[in-house]
């Protein structure tokens, strides 16, 4: 029923969602930490700016990202000056796009989880001889597991469904940037509804099962 391009798109989508989730959690953790514990007067502003990717329509955000990542853009031009290639229409490019697009979904739940935890457990861990980093890993991470689960699932699912930004900066190149959401969208636009239904159902089924397992493993409060 499904064709080779569909399988390719599924694999690419899972790869994109996974890579985005991992990188984003790594990047968002220190940022969320700073937001939770700083008393800098810039905190409110930084937090507001982190939320910005939400406010623009994805295609418009994608347009501006394309500007930045393309050869004339700040990032693209820098890369080309260093002998590299600009990032538009590449897997790396859509990873960057997805990261920026989903940034608030990672940062906000983590910030709230860190706040709720407070400094005390870390201080106790340090008094027991743990380094900052080790205390973070062995104490803060597990204690804020709920926040990480929320952040990871929101980012993962959001990247699965993301398509405006990816379409814009990715260009729908099969095997490189043509993710499942773009494919499903294309099917609906081409009025090829049965293909769209099949892919949508498959996507939902996989996502429900994965998420039900993730969520089901956590006991009730």
């Amino acid at each position, binding site marked *: 029923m499904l064709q080779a391009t569909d399988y390719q798109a599924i694999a690419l989508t899972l790869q994109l969602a996974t890579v985005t989730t991992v990188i984003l959690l790594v990047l968002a953790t220190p940022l969320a930490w700073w937001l939770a514990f700083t008393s800098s007067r810039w905190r409110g502003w930084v937090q507001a700016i982190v939320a910005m990717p939400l406010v623009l329509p994805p295609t418009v955000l994608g347009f501006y990202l*394309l500007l930045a990542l393309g050869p004339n853009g700040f990032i693209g031009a820098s890369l080309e000056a260093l002998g590299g290639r600009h990032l538009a229409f590449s897997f790396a490019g859509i990873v960057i796009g997805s990261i920026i697009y989903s940034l608030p979904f990672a940062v906000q739940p983590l910030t709230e989880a860190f706040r709720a935890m407070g400094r005390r457990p870390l201080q106790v861990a340090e008094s027991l001889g743990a380094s900052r980093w080790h205390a973070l890993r062995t104490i803060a991470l597990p204690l804020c597991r709920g926040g990480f689960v929320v952040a990871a699932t929101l980012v993962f699912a959001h990247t699965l469904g993301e398509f405006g930004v990816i379409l814009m900066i990715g260009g729908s190149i099969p095997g490189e940037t043509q993710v499942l959401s773009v494919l499903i969208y294309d099917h609906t*636009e081409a009025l090829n509804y049965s293909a769209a239904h099949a892919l949508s159902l498959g996507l939902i089924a996989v996502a429900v099962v994965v998420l039900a397992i993730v969520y089901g493993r956590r006991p009730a409060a």
Partner: protein
Amino acid sequence: RETIHVAVASSLRGPLEEIRNQFEQRHPEYHVTVAYVASGKLVAQVTHGAPYQLLVSAEPRYLDMLHARDLTLAAPMVIGYGELVLWHPDQAGTIEQIIEQADFVALAQPKHAPYGQAALAYLQRHFAHDRYADKLVYGDNVAQAAHRVHVGAADVGFVALSQVLELGLLSSAYTHLPTAPRLPQAIALTHQTKQNRGAQLLYDFMLAAESQQILATFGYQSTAAQEFAHVASD
């Protein structure tokens, strides 16, 4: 004032705004709202109760489909023809050279966008598959193809003549593609028109000389020969 709801393919936004202004001046008793919708969405929306009275599409086949389901009053009427061009902001030379040198060639998604279909047809006719296949980057529609060239991410792109005119590009920045198929732009009235006489007025206005003039300034052709050619090929 009575409101006329019109759904328009987004590639026709430029001329449609002009036509609307003219129409509202002529008929101040009517208020025209325009929704810019891609053709695929248009079909889905009209099928599921959209309040549009007049549909303007860059994809007559989609209107035919609606007519076949008895969702329009009559078969679609072609109001003009769009033309595909190749936008190459920095490159000069023959089409072959330009495509050869390009890293990325932007076009609309051929699966559902007529300008994309035309572009792909053009490439297939003039080039071996491996000369262009891995350069193609697809957009949702012809506007997204234009964005990519505009911001420099794609070196060149297949876009509509109307777009390069709207952007006021120098003629050296784009090349006409005489061998590419022309793209009929069509209109149709829905059953909602029965409660709204203004839609019929606007429909007529779009076929009138004033509208045809506006379409022409945006690069759409309206020769009887073209119309004849389209009908014959159908």
